[in-house]
């Protein structure tokens, strides 16, 4: 399946991907300014920037073929979409226990909340609102690639 890959030589850890990721999952997915200024909930990114010895990497959910978060989900809310391969949370069924947070070997699921209700936050490849993941779309250095491995 198509996923987002970081090209390490180009990633400068600028954080633009984080900003657009947070906005894309906010109440105003298509308007950066409104997302950060008008959202009732603080926009939260689904990806992580890691730095190591001067190198940086933008990293997010791998939508694993054997997804431990899905296997570990106590409510059946976490699932892998058969058609797209995307690992997603059914918000209505999720009870916010965060078993997925400790199950993910990469630590790629954030513990979050919406309107006082605990919810795990993770990359969904922006499938709900966009054709192209917004981290990739807006990376100023073309350090993120959306495609097959």
């Amino acid at each position: 399946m198509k996923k987002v890959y970081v090209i390490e030589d180009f990633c400068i850890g600028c954080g633009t991907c984080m900003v657009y990721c947070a906005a894309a999952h906010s109440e105003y997915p298509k308007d950066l300014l409104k997302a950060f200024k008008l959202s009732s909930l603080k926009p939260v990114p689904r990806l992580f920037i890691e730095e190591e010895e001067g190198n940086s990497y933008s990293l997010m959910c791998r939508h694993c073929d054997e997804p431990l978060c899905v296997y570990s989900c106590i409510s059946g809310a976490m699932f892998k979409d058969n058609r797209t391969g995307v690992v997603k949370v059914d918000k209505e069924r999720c009870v916010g226990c965060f078993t997925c947070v400790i199950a993910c070997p990469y630590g790629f699921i954030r513990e979050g909340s919406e309107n006082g209700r605990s919810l795990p936050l993770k990359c969904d490849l922006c499938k709900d609102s966009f054709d192209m993941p917004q981290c990739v779309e807006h990376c100023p250095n073309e350090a993120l690639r959306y495609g097959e491995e």
Partner: protein
Amino acid sequence: MRYVIIGNSTAAIGAVEGIREIDKQGEIIIISDEVYEAYSRPLISYYLSGKIIEKNIYYRDKNFYVQNGVALHTGQSNVQINPETKIVWIEPGSEQIHYDKLLIATGGKPVVPDFLNGGYDNVFLFHSFDDVKKIDDFLKKAGKRQNVAIIGGGLVGLKAAESMFFRGQDVAVVEAGDCLLNSILDLKAGNIVENYLKRRGISIFIQNIVEEKEGEDKLERLILSDGTILECDMVIAAAGIKPNYAWLNLKNLKVDKGILVDEYLQTSIDGIYAAGDVAQAYEIISGEKKVVPILPNAYIQGRIAGANMAGENVRYRGSIAFNSIPLLGLNIVTAGLSNCDDRDSEIIEEFRGEFNYKKFILKDDVLVGTVLIGDIYRCGIYRYLIEKKIKITDFKQSILSPEISWRLLGRAEAGFKGGTY
């Protein structure tokens, strides 16, 4: 090919999904003592507290059984098996069913302390959907705030306490051990949880057992070791779970704490598999077979057993214990030997406030356990380090860093290569 699965909870559903990855045609029969389609056992507390509606307690979509071609027989608690002829009877005298592969996925059974046996009509278990429905009925009929005594301060007891607290009841927890959640927390971490729950208004009695009881049809009063007199309108027994296999009574079935299974999750009887809370399978840290009764483990074992029943040879790589238990808004996660305080282990810990605690337990620079209370940011990485027994000598000092990174830690794994991950 005919598969028979006894039990209809997480491991059984995992098995169906594992079988169907390989075999789309074979016949699958599930026999269950409960009357429901598979529901999530840990969600009974959420149901009781009113956090979820009934529809959402079910573990899979309504059409799961039809879609997967599963014949479900519910309300059957007298299953009989003859492993020599590979025959099961759903109930004594019923039509015999030949199986090719059989899975035992009957989970655990609550242990009820003797003093609660006596036919009291205000004593409840906290294990099944029916248990919480009974509690719900009782609360509705009572109509006023109830004094609820919960016997056992483990995972089940505290989730019961939480749901009764959410329902506005007066809750007291009685725990015989040194601290709350003592199967996964040591004294220090247990005390943090205790202080938090007390602060929120739940009474906790540690190192206490019920010495005396009063009441005829109803258990009305409990007298604890420290002399405390607990008036109770309701009592919930949450004193532990044991693997539910005694009913099987098969002479060649090897059992210890649970049903012993090999690396393919097959029992000592050819063609019979076991998975989930009833099974005793390989555990990674000890290197021995253990019952690790957590839901993720039940699903994964079920799934692997299912695939193997359908003819694959998938090795079970073993489990470690891990849990995430939010209690009244406090996040608590643990992995591995999280309650270990051996002399030969190294402890790295940090308090960042009264209810924010991190603890890492290492042996020879290998992480063997962790407890995180409050902030659980990227805790999955630690669980992974424990599971893979990765030596963390090079970055031991930075394990408390908030900038914990998978890249940094993953590097230490033998055979780890850069590039895509």
